[in-house]
């Protein structure tokens, strides 16, 4: 179980006349319970990715505490949080010259001697033909969709208490994403003594959520079960307003 207690985060920006403090997240409190598939959604620039990075330890909150299974991990660094049981799938997966897919899966699993056959199982789970990819370098020769799948395979190989996905649909074409949804549906079905937090705007991801959290302008605008939140999201105020603008013209 992950608990976020009163998390705030701000940055200092230069604006020509001096520096100003810009608030990205404001007093966020949220609990991700075990065996839950929680989708975080909301407008761009609302602070969703920042929240994911704060959970992974990549960003440090200005105030507030983070607890994993009751243990305060606020002051732990990225490595320590990974070891404590947090996995993080990047919105833009990182490329490495020379490091092969097999190397990355072995590093993720923490097992240098993991057989190629065992590593291939994770690639098969994300819909990649394992033999075509296992010895490929994780470099610029891979497409956005392929990198996304490999990124997901690495977090599957870790199999930790909490996995955070930052916009898995970003940077890949719609057709590739349609196939990826099945991967998440399978993950949802297999949740066992763990939880998944996923940042997404995709309706089909929202549809398989246990809970939906809407973050807008750095705060939680809504939080509830899928049935409570989803109907209100479809036909959002912003969509309606856009139509009104067009009608007025």
């Amino acid at each position: 179980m992950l608990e976020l207690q009163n998390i705030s985060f701000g940055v200092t920006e230069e604006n020509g006349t001096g520096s100003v403090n810009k608030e990205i997240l404001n007093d966020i409190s949220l609990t991700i319970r075990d065996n839950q598939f929680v989708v975080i959604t909301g407008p761009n620039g609302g602070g969703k990715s920042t929240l994911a990075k704060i959970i992974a330890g990549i960003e440090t909150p200005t105030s507030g505490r983070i607890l994993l299974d009751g243990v305060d991990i606020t002051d732990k660094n990225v490595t320590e949080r990974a070891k404590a049981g947090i996995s993080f799938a990047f919105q833009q997966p990182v490329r490495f010259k020379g490091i092969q897919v097999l190397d990355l899966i072995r590093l993720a699993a923490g097992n240098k001697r993991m057989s190629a056959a065992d590593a291939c199982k994770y690639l098969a789970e994300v819909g990649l033909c394992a033999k075509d990819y296992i010895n490929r370098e994780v470099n610029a020769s891979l497409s956005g969709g392929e990198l996304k799948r490999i990124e997901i395979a690495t977090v599957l190989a870790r199999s930790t208490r909490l996995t955070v996905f930052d916009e898995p649909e970003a940077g890949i074409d719609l057709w590739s994403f349609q196939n990826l949804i099945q991967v998440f549906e399978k993950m949802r079905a297999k949740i066992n003594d763990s939880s998944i937090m996923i940042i997404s705007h995709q309706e089909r991801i929202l549809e398989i959520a246990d809970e939906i959290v809407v973050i807008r302008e750095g705060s939680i605008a809504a939080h509830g079960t899928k049935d409570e939140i989803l109907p209100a999201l479809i036909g959002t105020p912003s969509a309606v307003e856009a139509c009104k603008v067009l009608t007025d013209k």
Partner: protein
Amino acid sequence: MLQIKEIDEIQKRLLMEVADLHKVPEGAFNIRANGESAMRNTTANIDIVSKENGSGIDIKIKPGTKNESVHIPVVMSQSGLKEVVYNDFYIGEDSDVIIVAGCGIDNCGTQDSEHDGIHRFYVGKGARVKYVEKHYGSGDGTGKRLLNPGTEVYMEENSTMEMEMVQIKGVDSTKRDTKAELKEGARLVVHERLMTHGTQDAYSIYNVSLNGDGSSADVVSRSVARDQSFQKLDLCVTGNAACSGHTECDSIIMDQGRILAVPSLEANSTEAALVHEAAIGKIAGEQITKLMTLGLTEAEAEEQIINGFLK
């Protein structure tokens, strides 16, 4: 097999580092230890003979020799030894061979140890050669470990040479000078991997002349400069015919390391297609972060990134 003298444990370890030799290799070989020939073996197709003036060896590979290998490692464990060795390879037409060279120096003494190996390759028509050269230094003496390899490659029509040049550790100073001349249809592929640390310096110079129509060269150098080390990478391809050439220097700098990359192209024919690329930078922060999210420490992440980059 002629066994001239026993080699010691340090030399055995150096042999493992530079030529992956855990035992006496199969096929033809010549092992040079502390300035003299220690072991040699020849085959029906590959002959190794000492030069009359004692300055090195001639390796003669008969035309049509297929799937054979030659190992010619050099190991030095005696401090203060300095030598210049000339090894000439005559590779017969249509042969297909692997040549493994390399030099390991262990210097525990106070005097500098230096090995300057000059390798000349005469690659016959249609021959295919894979050449692997590894350099390595060890020992905690104050004497320096110096290696200045010179490589000259003369390629006849439609021959192919693939060179893997590796220097990862322990060599205090190196000047690597490689020249190649290619005739019609010849193809040269070079993969260099270089890492310097401490106060080492390394100069790597390539001059490739594409003289024949249809010839091609791909020279790729990946290097890492750590601590206070310095590298100069000077990769030049000259196109004198309807040819294609590509050079690439890709480097990572760490600590106070410095790298000067000078890729250059010279086209003397309108039909020459030449490309160069160069990039120098520190390890991308997001690469370290990604590996840390997999549970590696920052230092472990750096090590994995460097290992992969130089693989």
